[in-house]
């Protein structure tokens, strides 16, 4: 493997599910490509990601019943699998965001103090 920075993978593994949920919650149903573009857009220029990396997160979330995928047509009449957030997903998102905020706050505080 070429020397891709490891930190990127770690960041994504911890947060990708949350990011995907959040994106679906605010933007409504999206396909994987749409989600990936949205991520790149928001995160630019701090990260570029292989769009395929999203798939495990999508599988995980769908198996948990937090998102639901259906095949539809895009405006340009391409077929694509659109994911939408379920009610369980909304509840999950709230809980996860809360946890994330607490954790992030704690880490922030620690980092400030140490610094």
């Amino acid at each position, binding site marked *: 493997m070429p020397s891709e920075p490891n930190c990127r993978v770690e960041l994504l593994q911890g947060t990708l599910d949350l990011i995907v949920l959040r994106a679906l919650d605010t933007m409504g149903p999206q396909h994987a490509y749409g989600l990936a573009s949205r991520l790149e857009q928001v995160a630019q220029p701090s990260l570029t990601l292989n*769009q395929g990396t999203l*798939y*495990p997160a999508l599988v995980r979330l769908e*198996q*948990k019943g937090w998102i639901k995928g259906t095949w539809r047509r895009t405006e340009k009449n391409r077929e694509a*699998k659109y994911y939408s957030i379920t009610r369980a997903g909304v509840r999950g998102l709230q809980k996860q965001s809360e946890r994330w905020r607490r954790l992030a706050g704690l880490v922030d505080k620690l980092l400030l103090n140490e610094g």
Partner: protein
Amino acid sequence: MGHVRRFFLRLGNALRPGRAEPDLAREVSSHLRLLEDEFRRRGMSEEQAGLAAKRAFGGIEQTKELARDARSFVWFDEVRRDLHYAVRTFRRSPGFSAVAVLTLALGIGSTTTIFSFVNAVLLNPLAYPASDRLVVVALTMNGTPISVTPGDFLEWQAQNHSFEAMAAGTVTPYNLTGRGEPIGVLTGLVSDRFAETLRVAPQLGHSFAAEADADRSHSVIISDHLWRHRFNADPAIIGSSITLEGAPYTVVGVMPAGVSFPRELMTSDGARTLPDVDSWVPLTLRPNDRANGFLEVVARLKSDVSCAQAQIEMATIQRALADRFMPRELRDLNVGLRVVQMQEQIVRAVRPLLLTLFRAVTLLLVVACANVANLLLGRAATREREVAIRSALGSGRRRLIQQYLIESVLLGALGGALGLLVTNVGIDLISALIPPGTLPRVREVRIDSHVLIFSTAVSVITGLMFGLLPAMQAGNTDLTTTFRGTGATHTMRSRYLRVLVAAEVALAFVLLVGAGLLFKSFARLTSVNPGFRPESILTLDVTLPEGSYPTLTEMRAFSSAVLEGMRHTPAMVESGAVNLLPIGGPLLSGDFTLEGVPRPRGFTAVKPAVSPGYFRALGIPMLRGRDFNERDTENAPGVAVVTERFARRAWLGQDAIGKRLKLGFGRPEDQPWLTVVGVVGDVKQSTLADETRPAIYVSLMQAPQPFLLRNLTFVARTAVDPRSVASLVREDIHRVDPLLPIDRVATMTQLLSDSVAEPRFRAVLLGAFGASAVVLIAVGMLGVLGFFVARRTQEIGLRIAIGAQRADIVTLIVKQALAMTGIGIACGAALALAVTRLLERFLFEISPYDPAIFVLIAAVLCVMSLVASYVPARRAMKIDPLVALRCE
């Protein structure tokens, strides 16, 4: 919630992989299409857009693999694929797979067979409800078990606080007459609460009525076996009358199968040949009977009392009883009381036999495992390139080891499954082979859930055991050396192979020495001179019932009449009658009085009563004096014939003829003096293994007590095959008493053979294990030497090319074989010296370290290794140096 849902979805996907696969492919390709659209919109060409899309997406296969990983359990999928792969590998080399599976089936199957016996006899609880609360209360005198008197039993019953219920009983042969030919049925004379104590209820009818009931004394409960075989399972039997010992009994109940109280508690050598109990009649116990000990006692512990507590209480009660009732002169006899689990009492005697067999068969299993490990290692050599390629393509060490282990566990499972067939046959075979009466509970042996669990566990464990070494080897494959052709792995591997074969030889050596010792001991036993000539002798046993033969007069008249008839039977050479037939019969050894000399301490004698002609019929040599004759009647002067050993010990070399003695049945003052008129050769009275016991013979006509003649055996020496005159002699008996059942008809050779059936059984079974081990080793050694030759084809070719003789090549191979065998034998001998003493109790007149056997077995194994090296040696000799050197 989400997690649980996800777990089951993953499990579902793991079990049915590939269902979501098309959807994933479709999604990925639609994703790529959208990306391409985007790149084209930005002005790229078709081609550029395609490449850019793939770049932006990342590795397509990796992505799919990650998605699969999230979707299902990948390890599960791996296992599934490994299994699939293993099956393909087995199919590719069917010969290897067959040998491996058969070897394992033999090893696992034999082990499971013996375990089935251990399980049914030693481990499974008795068939009675809550049988772990059942105990036997037994007395011992100087360590030997003695029976309990009614007086003691009734006191125990009245005084104890440990037991819910107690029961006592004894067995006696009764004659069942009417409704067909008379037969003997072993009858249990049982105390009141025997059914409640054991918690068995008759399957038909009911138990005995209460003590006060007048009908009670002539009630009988019959066994399931008797009901089915004698009365055609007729339910109307309840309430009908049957004739036992000439008296009418009313059938009140039919017991379920499997109840044989109190026969099942009787485990002495004498009781061994007794059949199961077929009827039960109530026994009335006299409280002041303290002289006759004849009862076996069983009790059910109260739920809060342990066996040890009961033991303490009962011992206290018994001590008090002894102080009160035991005659002063008997007090110093060391009487002890034991409370033992009923199961323990029943199986104690056979535990050593079963455990020995189990140990032996475990050795066989280990040999089988080592052998399969060997095969796998040998085959691993041919798979080296495959393994190297797989690891070059990225299979990790863990994956390779996993693959190998899955293969070997699959082999183990196949072997185990086939082994169950072996077990199925094995159980029948051993049950048929086992001498009757040797093993209690033998009818309960079957493949039950414990046996299945055992077999499965053994299969998996052996699979891991023999697979581990080859797997580690595969895991250590070094790519560079493998691709280069030769490497250190080969040397390592062939060293493992040799060590394994040597280990197999060592284990087989132990097994074979065990078998050899048992065979030699058996041969010793059968070559013992019984003191008579057993060929061409027919024996018929009868029991004279008290009803029709109350006194000696009727008994003597009966035997004289039968003998008179037998004298005129065609093909009869000589005939006679005896109350204690040598070999296998009960042994009654007792005291006697010598005229003018005190009886030496510990000098007892067997005292059979015989008819004139008995010695000639059996072929017992008359050394001095004369046989009994027709003039030695009841009213003539008492005479006796003694054995040589008796004469020597009693009169120390003086002539025995004319000396006088008394028999010792009852008080000496009341008995007549008997004059010794003859001396005969010594006879093995109880078993061939037993010491030769001195004997005093009395004339049947002068036997002093009716009980002595209750059991009689007629013996006939015939000019033709003795079995062919059996029906004639039956007629001789039935002409005198048509209603008398004949308990047993057997030839003397048969009885002798039966008496050594158990040692023979042990030797044959261990021999079979040993022989199987030898075959396994031969196969293993063949494989290893074949591997050796294949590996060194070039070297051997070179040797031949530079002038080595064929003989040198053969020497090379044979040396290898003998080296492995030699090391194995040395280790095996050391091991055998340590463990064969476990067999000591089974050996007759030979030491467990018998050097001849050790040497013989070593020779057998050397010969076997020479035979096993024949094929590889021939292949080595045929190596063409040109061909060998050209390859690579």
